[in-house]
């Protein structure tokens, strides 16, 4: 799809960036101590911290990723909203106050508060770095993806731009400027997501979302022994075909343009249904529906094919209440698009075929995560494993945990978590409406689900689109700032100061933190450029799985099991990291998506490691702690 840069969006983005740089410069003079740099002096109001939590947590994966997943796969995307929010319950009831009581600047501080163990300092710092980097890469890749269509800049320019701004934010005033950037971004995201949801409900949905929505054609054909031999429309000529167990497609030529059509049978009659296709020729030429991209023939999609209101079929619904909106979709039918890839001679062809799906299927789990139709034991185990990792991952993310040090007391830590749960929970409810709105508004770009929310905003006018796009940039800035603070703390405070024992003055610690932030920021820029095109959801999943497996067992057992030893904690972190990373790197999804190998060749048939790696980490901690009780005594 072709995107056009909006001057208003660019203007808003520049205004936001200038505001962010202004805030950072303002707080720079006040951030002279390590307490100020790493913990914002511990003076942030719990209300501000609560919204900043939302700004920190609601990353590009939440805003762009979940909305996109709901737009493409219905309720299954909402499962992420449920899991991500439920994880905050663990943070509130179990982690918030103790972490504030025991820790100083970093996650390792809290784990190590009664041991003074080099093993904990090293393993917790490594865990923080791995989780932060796994989380940083998708944010940086996302930044590049956003800049390309919206500002007309190349991918690397987006990554460098975001990286440079974030390094400035963190290196000038550390956690203080990061907090206020996240506060502003969190607040704006929730306000404008609410406005977008109101627009979706007020608009309702219709069979034809817009005047210029592409009308997909169906042509009658004649087939003999499973092969299409003639077309009813004389302007088309058969130019090729592909058939396998999953689908049958024919290539039709019309006026020198080749397009792909899906072959189907209806009442004994062979029908050809128009698809959308991308053909990559051996000489590097890429054609969209048989023509260059600039011809704009790769249409935006997404519409209802049948709408039922009060038991009658209608063409459009008009404005709907929130429950009415969901129940109307439940009774209706939506055109989704299924993807297939095959070779046509030397050309690589990807087609997206129309797939009318009943509202009943869209409004419950099963389209992406196989728990019902087509499910087996492993697919159900994967689903359970994912839900466990989401539940336990949130309260173990280092960049979230360090936000507890920015408020004055444990009581404030608790209150700020409740503000976070309220605001994040509200936002996640909105994701269902924004995602379904995008699914039905004829705006989806089949090449990138991540653009669904900004494109939905565009449907309601350039102003909303510009604001939502600027907020999407801000989303990346806010989250990346938090991650760089966490990672620089792990390097300067945990590794250099605590583990290696390098003696530094208070000013020296701030300087070390700032230099670490610059180095981590540069590494993030580099990885963001190198990982262009990589599946961002995969990396976020990796971060959650490693956090839940490596960090959470250590936190929980330290708080609730008196026999926990430092060696037990260090061993559980190492086992958690290795088992989670190992399972993911040997999983079917990684084989297919990352290595380009057949998924069936993967030695471990599980995609989500949580169900194995989290218990394994707990067991390791218990066993090693029991064997090292003497040292403790």
């Amino acid at each position, binding site marked *: 799809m072709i995107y056009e840069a909006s001057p208003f969006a660019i203007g808003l983005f520049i205004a936001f960036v200038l505001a962010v740089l202004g805030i950072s410069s303002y707080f720079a003079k006040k951030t002279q101590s390590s*307490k100020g740099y790493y913990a914002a002096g*511990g003076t942030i109001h719990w209300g501000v911290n609560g919204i900043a939590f939302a700004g920190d947590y609601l990353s590009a994966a939440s805003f762009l990723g979940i909305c996109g997943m709901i737009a493409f796969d219905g*309720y299954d995307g*909402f*499962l992420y*909203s*449920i899991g991500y*929010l*439920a994880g*905050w*319950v663990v943070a509130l*009831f*179990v982690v918030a*106050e103790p972490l*504030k*009581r*025991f*820790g*100083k*600047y970093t996650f390792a501080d*809290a784990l*190590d*508060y009664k041991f*003074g163990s080099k093993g904990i300092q090293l393993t917790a710092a490594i865990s923080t770095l791995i989780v932060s980097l796994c989380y940083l890469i998708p944010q940086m890749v996302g930044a590049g993806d956003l800049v390309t269509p919206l500002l007309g800049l190349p991918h690397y320019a987006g990554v460098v731009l975001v990286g440079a701004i974030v390094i400035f934010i963190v290196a000038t005033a550390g956690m203080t400027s990061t907090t206020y950037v996240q506060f502003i971004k969190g607040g704006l995201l929730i306000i404008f997501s609410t406005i977008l949801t109101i627009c979706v409900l007020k608009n309702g949905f219709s069979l034809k979302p817009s005047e210029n929505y592409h009308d997909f054609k169906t042509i009658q054909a004649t087939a003999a022994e499973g092969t299409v031999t003639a077309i009813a429309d004389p302007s088309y000529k058969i130019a090729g075909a592909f058939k396998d167990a999953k689908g049958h497609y024919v290539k039709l030529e019309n006026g020198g343009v080749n397009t792909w059509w899906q072959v189907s049978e209806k009442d004994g009659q062979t029908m050809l249904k128009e698809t959308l296709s991308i053909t990559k020729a051996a000489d590097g030429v890429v054609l969209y529906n048989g023509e260059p991209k600039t011809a704009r023939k790769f249409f935006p999609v997404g519409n209802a094919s049948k709408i039922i209101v009060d038991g009658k079929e209608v063409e459009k619904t008009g404005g709907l209440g929130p*429950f*009415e909106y*969901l*129940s109307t979709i*439940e*009774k209706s039918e939506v055109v989704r698009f299924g993807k297939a890839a095959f070779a046509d001679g030397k050309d690589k062809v990807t087609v997206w075929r129309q797939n009318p799906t009943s509202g*009943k299927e869209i*409004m*419950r*789990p*099963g389209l992406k995560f196989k*728990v*019902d139709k087509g*499910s087996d034991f492993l697919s159900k185990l994967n*689903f*359970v494993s994912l*839900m466990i990792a989401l*539940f336990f991952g949130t309260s173990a993310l280092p960049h979230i945990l360090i936000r507890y*040090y920015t408020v*004055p*007391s*444990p*009581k404030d830590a*608790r*209150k700020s*978590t*409740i503000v976070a*749960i*309220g605001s994040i*929970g509200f936002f*996640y*409810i909105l994701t*269902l409406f924004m995602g379904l709105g995008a699914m039905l508004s004829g705006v989806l770009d089949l090449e990138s689900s991540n653009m669904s929310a900004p494109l939905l905003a565009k449907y309601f006018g350039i102003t909303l689109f510009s604001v939502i796009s600027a907020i999407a940039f801000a989303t990346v800035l806010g989250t990346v700032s938090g991650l760089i603070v966490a990672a620089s703390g792990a390097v300067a*405070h945990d590794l250099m*100061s605590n583990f290696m024992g390098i003696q530094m003055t208070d000013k020296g610690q701030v300087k070390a933190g700032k230099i670490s932030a610059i180095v981590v920021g540069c590494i993030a820029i580099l990885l963001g450029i190198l990982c262009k095109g990589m599946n961002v959801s995969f990396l976020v999943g990796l971060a959650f799985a490693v956090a839940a497996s490596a960090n959470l067992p250590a936190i929980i057992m330290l708080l*609730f099991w008196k026999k926990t030893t430092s060696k037990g904690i260090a061993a559980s972190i190492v086992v958690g990291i290795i088992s989670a990373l190992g399972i993911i790197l040997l999983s079917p999804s990684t084989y297919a998506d990352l290595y380009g190998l057949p998924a069936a060749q993967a030695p471990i048939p599980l995609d989500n490691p949580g169900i194995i790696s989290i218990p394994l980490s707990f067991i390791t901690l218990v066993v090693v702690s029991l064997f090292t009780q003497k040292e403790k005594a």
Partner: protein
Amino acid sequence: MAHGPSTQWGEDRASEYKSKLGVYLFIFYTLVYAGFIVINVVSPKSMGVIVVAGLNLACVYGFGLIILAITMGLIYNYMCSQQEYKMNK
């Protein structure tokens, strides 16, 4: 370098009460969350059953989990604040 907290505050005599309450509420929420996973795995078709206001069980349970988290958070804060007021006077 010391690992102590970055700020100082008075002794909190209510911390044991808050810790226990937190664990009970955590267990309760975990059971409700586990129920959601179990229904999806054991009886996925139940998720499509219309429960209230034209909404199916998947929507009601999903929204319910989010709203329950917010509600339990508010109750927890109220009970903790009351106890802090009583015990730290």
